[in-house]
Each structure stands twice: as structure tokens, then as C-alpha cells.
């Protein structure tokens, strides 16, 4: 059985936000919710990196652990989904998630969050597959059609990879091998003076102890 995973290759992401737009459009995400976002570190400086993050579909999902009504469930592929009919909108999943994946629509009054919405790995919800009701609540169910999440399909540089964890790992390992780890090789900055291809210049005088 495949174990579905996301991987965003920080070396390839160019912050084009195609994944964000594809997800928002395809799933008709509620107002105020952004299932996927691209975060850029050191924007504008050498050493800039971007990463696309949505729900990571954790094995020991904190959102599922803290939910007071136990509305989360796990598919056989490891995808973490939830039932909006059971959700009471308390917000605990949002507090617990390290990635900020569960979000709430912004069009409700104070104290009333509405139903939680998050990335479903394009896997829909508990409603019957590809039904109108499922689309209205959870967005597209591409997994039931044998397809992979649209964000990864739309990625312009194939930085964002989604699918079977073994295949994703193989792809990434191949990339790392081809690149030769030039940017991230420990010691190259000292040995070859050039600090590698994409290392940031804000490293002078600093070491990995963070002083």
C-alpha cells in the first residue's frame, strides 16, 4: 500500500505560487482559507529559499490527537482527512498543527469559526467519491480518479512532489546525487573558499552553533 507524502525541494522552488493557485481554484476553497502557501526565507538576499507547505498528513497527527469530537480519520494511504459534519469549529487542531494546515473561513462572527478546512491531498472526504456534496464540502477528489494532488502536478519546476513516499524519496535522492550536494555540503565553504553555489553570504563569521 502506498504511503502518501509531500516533499518540497527547497533548491528548486521558485516561489511562483502555482501550487497555491491550483489548489485554491480546483478545490474552491472557502473564503479566508489558504490550504497551501509558499514561505520564503531570506527573501531578496543571497541564500533565499522557498518552500511550499500545506498539510503534511502526519503519521502521529497532532490535529487528530487534540480534536474534542474525534472528527479526523486516516485512509489506508496515510492521508489525514476529517468529517466536516462532526467538526464543531473549536480550533484546537489549528493550535496543535506545526504547519498551520487546519484553517477556518473568515466570514463568520467572532467565536464562531465555522467548519475547519484543510488540504485533503486531493482526497475528498467521507461523502461518496466524486459526488457533488463531496466537492462542495471538501473539494476535488483526485485520488479516487487515480490522479495525484493538483499542486504537485502544476508545480512549474517540479519542486513539489506528491505521491507514494518510496517513489518521492527515490526522486529526491536522485536529485541530491546529481547535484552533488554542492549547496549544502559541509566544509565546502572552508575547503574551496567559494561557499558552494547557492550558499548565502550571511554566513561569514557565523557557525552552526548559532552564536
Amino acid at each position, binding site marked *: 500500500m502506498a504511503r502518501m507524502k509531500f516533499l518540497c525541494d527547497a533548491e528548486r522552488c521558485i516561489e511562483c505560487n502555482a501550487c497555491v493557485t491550483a489548489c485554491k481554484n480546483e478545490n474552491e476553497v472557502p473564503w479566508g482559507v489558504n490550504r497551501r502557501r509558499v514561505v520564503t526565507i531570506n527573501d531578496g538576499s543571497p541564500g533565499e529559499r522557498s518552500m511550499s507547505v500545506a498539510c503534511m498528513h502526519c503519521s502521529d497527527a497532532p490535529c487528530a490527537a487534540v480534536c474534542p469530537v474525534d472528527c479526523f480519520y486516516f485512509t489506508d494511504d496515510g492521508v489525514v482527512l476529517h468529517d466536516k459534519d*462532526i467538526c464543531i469549529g473549536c480550533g484546537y487542531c489549528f493550535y496543535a498543527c506545526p504547519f498551520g494546515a487546519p484553517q477556518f473561513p473568515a466570514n463568520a462572527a*467572532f467565536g464562531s469559526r465555522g467548519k475547519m478546512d484543510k488540504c485533503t491531498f486531493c482526497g475528498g472526504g467521507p461523502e461518496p467519491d466524486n459526488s457533488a456534496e463531496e466537492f462542495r464540502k471538501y473539494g476535488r477528489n483526485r485520488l479516487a480518479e487515480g490522479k495525484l494532488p493538483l499542486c504537485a502536478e502544476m508545480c512549474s519546476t517540479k519542486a513539489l512532489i506528491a505521491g507514494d513516499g518510496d517513489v518521492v524519496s527515490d526522486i529526491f535522492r536522485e536529485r541530491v546525487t546529481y547535484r552533488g550536494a554542492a549547496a549544502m555540503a*559541509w566544509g565546502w565553504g572552508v575547503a574551496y573558499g567559494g561557499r558552494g553555489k547557492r550558499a548565502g553570504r550571511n554566513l561569514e563569521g557565523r557557525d552552526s*552553533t548559532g552564536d
Partner: protein
Amino acid sequence: MTAKPAGEKSQRKPHIGRWLVCLLAVVLVVPLIPYTFADRGNVPNPGADLWREVRQREAPVTGTTQVKGVDTGVLINIRGEQWRQFRMQTLLPAGGMVLGAVVGLIALFYLVRGTIRVPGGRSGKRIQRFTEYDRILHWSTVFLFYLLAVTGLVLLYGRFLLIPLLGPDGFAVTASACKEAHNLFGPLFFVVLVLLVINFIRSNLPKWVDIKWLLKGGGLFGGHASAGYFNGGEKIWFWLVTLFGLAICVSGFVLLFQNFDQGRQLMEISHVIHSSLALLLVAGSFGHAYIGTLGMEGSLESMTTGSVDANWAKAHHDLWMEERAAKGLDENAAPSPEQQSPPGKTAPGYQT
């Protein structure tokens, strides 16, 4: 090693051996000395900076994103996991144990001591203790407090206790109703609590006699403990309700009105304060309710009818009765043989 005369060999060998060992140590250790002063840590790992910022252990947030919102530039929020561990591994089990322990201790005390009767029996004479306003405030607070307590406990423990009973859909409806009720009556509880605090605060200011009352365990040990209008235990309960209650209300408002761009950290801290103090207050309320009903004969009527038996008042609040006598109230009251308060002791500022 060169040959030595036999006699000298036995004398020199220990010396040479010792010197050789010293020389060996010197040869091995001295070259290492420069290494202790050498700067070994200055080789940066180019990846470390990036992943340190991704991990986001230090504020401020350094990532930027096109998505506008609070904390959207944060890639990994590590406090979420800390909060999850606290709620699931600490708060839930500890809360259950505290509540269970308090109920158990109260039950044990009742089985051992029983209801504490009015000494000398009831005299039949009534003394006015609480006004109608006092009682309305008290019972409104009680009703709202237990409504909030029950709905809050459903949100905490319902997943484990009620889903097997009600099923997932049935419990979802129940929990949703509990959450809405909790959110609706929370602000109302705040209003009533503030009125209650204002109403009773003057009678609950700490005095030395209360410390003495507490040291005697309220009369459980050490003989009779004098008390005024409110005794030391009642005052402690008042201040617990005031301080914890206000903290619960403030944190509750932060949690309730979540549309003011509160970040996750503020919400997590508010939740920790809110739930921990609320559980403690619920446990305390069991003790207060016990004393006011089963524990002490003649107590409940003070809050239901507003008046108490004169013997009850003399036994449990003798300084209050003295102050009333000094003011000329209760003139018809015959002096009770149980009255043991020391002469000339009037406590100022007690509400009658």
C-alpha cells in the same frame, strides 16, 4: 638500554622507568595543548542556517509569504506540539485525578465525621444573614458556573467518555451545543462574577482572626476557632473564585473573540490558563458545596432563605454575633450558654 653494573642497576631502574613514563606522557599530551585553544567550531554548515529558520525556534518570524494572515510566514510552529503534549498527557489525566481525589476525600470526610450539627441544637430564633440581592447573585453564579463547568468538561473528556455512549454523530451534536453554550454563557458569567465580587469583597478582607481560624483548621483541631461574618475558609474560597475566576474570564475572552489576530501562541497560553484554573475551581467548588449543604447543618438555609439559626451563628460566627449585639440588634436573644467569645472583642467593618 645500556648495560649497567649489577649494583647500580637495581638502584637506577625505578628512576629510569619513572622518567620514561613521564617522557611518554609529555610526548603524547603536549602536542594536544594547541588543540584546546584551536578554533574548531568555525566551519559553517550552509544548510544549518536555512533549517534553523525553518524550524522557527527563535522569534521573530523570518519567512515571508504571499498569503496574508497571522503567522502565515511561520513554516513550523513547535509550540503546537508542546501544547498538544500538555493537553493530552498532563491536563487530561491530572484534571481527572484532581477531580476524583477531591470527590474521594470529601466522601471520606463525610463517612468519618458526618454532618457537623449545630452545637446545643437549634434555638428557633432566626438571624438575618444574606439579603435577597446576595442570594440572587450567589445562585446565578452557581448556575452559570456549573453550566460552564459541565459544558467545559464535555469538551475536555467527552471524546473518551461520551462517544461510546452517544456515537460519533450524537456526540458531535452534543459537543457543538456545549461549545455554543459555553461561549454564550461565558461572558454572562463574567458580568455576574464581577457583581458578586463587588458585593462581597468588603466582608472578605483578610484579618488576623482568619489566620488563627485557619491554623485551628476551622475548629477541626485546636478547639473553638473564632470567626466574624465570614471565616478564614470562606475568605479563601472567595479569593480563589475572584482571582481564578477573573483569570478564567480574561483568558476566555481571548479564546472567544478570536478575530483580533491572536497568534497561535497566545491562544495556546490562554487555553492552558483557562482549562487548568477552571479544573481547580471546579474541584474547589465541590468542597464549598459540600460544606454548604451536607457538611454543616444549618448552612444551606443561609443562602436559600437568607436567615440562620442563632445557635448556628453563635457557634460558627461568634464575632459577628458579638458585633450585632454591640449594635443592639438581636436584643430579644437570650444569651446562649455556648457563647465563649472573649470579652471586649469587636471586629470592625463586618457587614451585618
